[in-house]
């Protein structure tokens, strides 16, 4: 479904991603690990084509079609969606308005907002005064209404309390399984792994992939020995 070929991305003249090769099949869930500044968020933003994250070299293919020159909204229309780590506040635009843009059936909106404890937030301005957890739930809510085939999730659990991680993880895990969606998920804490079925893990080091393999094993190595140790590990091979 998604194929990154020799992808290099520069941000403000500095090369952040050097030579990324990655394939994600339909329904596959890939976890992206890596220390701060390794280029994880940059990779997600480059796939979505956000400004300042243009492709310097290589290709981004989605269902065999190159995305490199397409604006964000066209990539989104082809079936890619992203959950933002730091979504902006937009005053005067209600969460409900955007929800209606994404989904015409108000019953679907109501059901999902209840499931994610967001019913009371529908009439509020987008992200205005939302807590960390509310923001993440609102992002997941919008993404699920958007129904992309490939979900890009940038630290879905950061700044969220344990209770809400469990709520979000459960909803997300069920959704990915039921709808057979593909996902590329960044996590630092690994909590999300308890709730979703992840197929593969990859580690980014200074803009390049290190090892790939069983995401739980990779996370365990990172947790016990840190990223430096993980860097040495090429046992399980490089991502394809």
């Amino acid at each position, binding site marked *: 479904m998604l194929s990154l070929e020799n992808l290099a991305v520069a941000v403000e003249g500095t090369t952040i991603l050097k030579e990324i090769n990655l394939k994600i099949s339909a329904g596959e869930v890939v976890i992206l690990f890596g220390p701060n500044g390794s280029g994880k968020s940059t990779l997600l933003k480059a796939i*979505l084509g*956000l*400004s300042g994250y243009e492709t310097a070299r290589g290709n981004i293919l989605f269902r065999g079609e190159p995305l490199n020159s397409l*604006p*964000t*909204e066209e990539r*989104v*229309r082809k079936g890619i*969606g*992203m959950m*933002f780590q730091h*979504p*902006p506040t*937009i*005053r*005067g*635009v209600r969460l409900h*308005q*955007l929800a209606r*843009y*994404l989904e015409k059936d108000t019953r679907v909106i109501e059901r999902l907002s209840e499931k994610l404890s967001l019913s009371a937030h529908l009439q509020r*301005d987008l992200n205005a005064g939302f807590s960390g957890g509310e923001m993440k739930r609102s992002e997941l809510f*919008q993404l699920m209404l*958007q129904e992309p085939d490939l979900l890009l999730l940038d630290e879905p659990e950061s700044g969220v309390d344990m209770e809400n991680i469990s709520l979000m993880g459960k909803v997300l895990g069920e959704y990915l399984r039921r709808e057979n969606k593909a996902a590329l998920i960044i996590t630092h804490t690994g909590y999300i792994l308890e709730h979703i079925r992840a197929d593969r893990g990859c580690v980014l080091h200074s803009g390049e992939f290190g090892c790939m393999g069983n995401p739980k094993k990779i996370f365990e190595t990172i947790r016990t020995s840190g990223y430096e140790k993980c860097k040495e590990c090429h046992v399980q091979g490089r991502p394809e």
Partner: protein
Amino acid sequence: MSKEDLNKHISESDREKISSSGMDFSEKTRSGSFLQEDAKVLFSRALSESMDILSLEDARRTFPRFADYWGKAFQRAGKEFPPDTEGGYFIRVKKGQTVELPIQACLFLKAQKFRQKVHNIIIVEEDAKVYLITGCSASKASKESFHLGLSEFFVEKGGYLNFTMIHSWREDVSVKPMSVAVVEEGGSFVSNYVCLRPVKEIVMYPTALLEGEGARASFNSLILSHPGTLQDIGSRVILNAKNTQAEIVSRAVSTGGKTVARGHLQANAGEVKAHLECRGLMLSPRGVIQAIPELETSYRDVDMSHEAAIGKISKDEIEYLCARGLSEDEAQSIIIRGFMDVNILALPPAVKSEVAQLEEKTLYEGF
């Protein structure tokens, strides 16, 4: 004139212009109406006995306490005003009466280079409550006209007046409204101002005097500034009694015109609360927005604050909406509509949807 004569008198294009400033000709959603064209009062009627709606001249002849009100608000505010006006409305809501549906008034410019000078008086007696929607507009023929509107509002003890003014002028019309509201103990005065269509020049600085304990005033404005427009629009609240509250909120968008958004809160008593918020959005490199907020007091136990912010549309906001599948134009348009949020106006539900529709129509034409 009668309703039938009025319908014959008003041409289709004038009817459209007048409606664009909030007039409902069917009167189904209104409890009374007043319509003046240039210097001539065309129509006035109250649909219930809770109130009087008259021309100012009729009120001068028939209302016994007329002299207790005429000019008195301006005098209390220390403002001089021209006495040589022609027409204007007189609205009185009687003691203890709540008028559920809004009263509508429209001041219309018809003739070329006409100088309309009106004087309006609105009295909300003790514990009465009313919504008033005033539209001011100009016909296609009214080139280079001028409108001076004097308004005096009297909100008596425990009264409530919600006054919405919609300006729908044309690019060569100059306008100078002057108004003073006197609010007594426990009374509330809410002023909503909407100006979305082109105009040559508007200069106004309406003032509310909070004279009794517990009185409140709020001024809310939505202003769109087209190229060639100068809008010098302020709101002032003088808090002369303790435990009074004031709020001034404005949103200005410039597509090339100049807007000066002034606000002045002056506390002459303690235990008051007052806030001023002024936001501007610049959509053109040729536009100008100038925010001038002022807070003033010699009392220590006051809670007064202001915030002012001017900027362009944030790229992050556009990209965020594009990431949900909106095109860049759609994203920009939804952000502007959000900025010009009718919810900042304290409107009754029926009027809110009308103003939202008017705004939608204007913004749709503009962006």
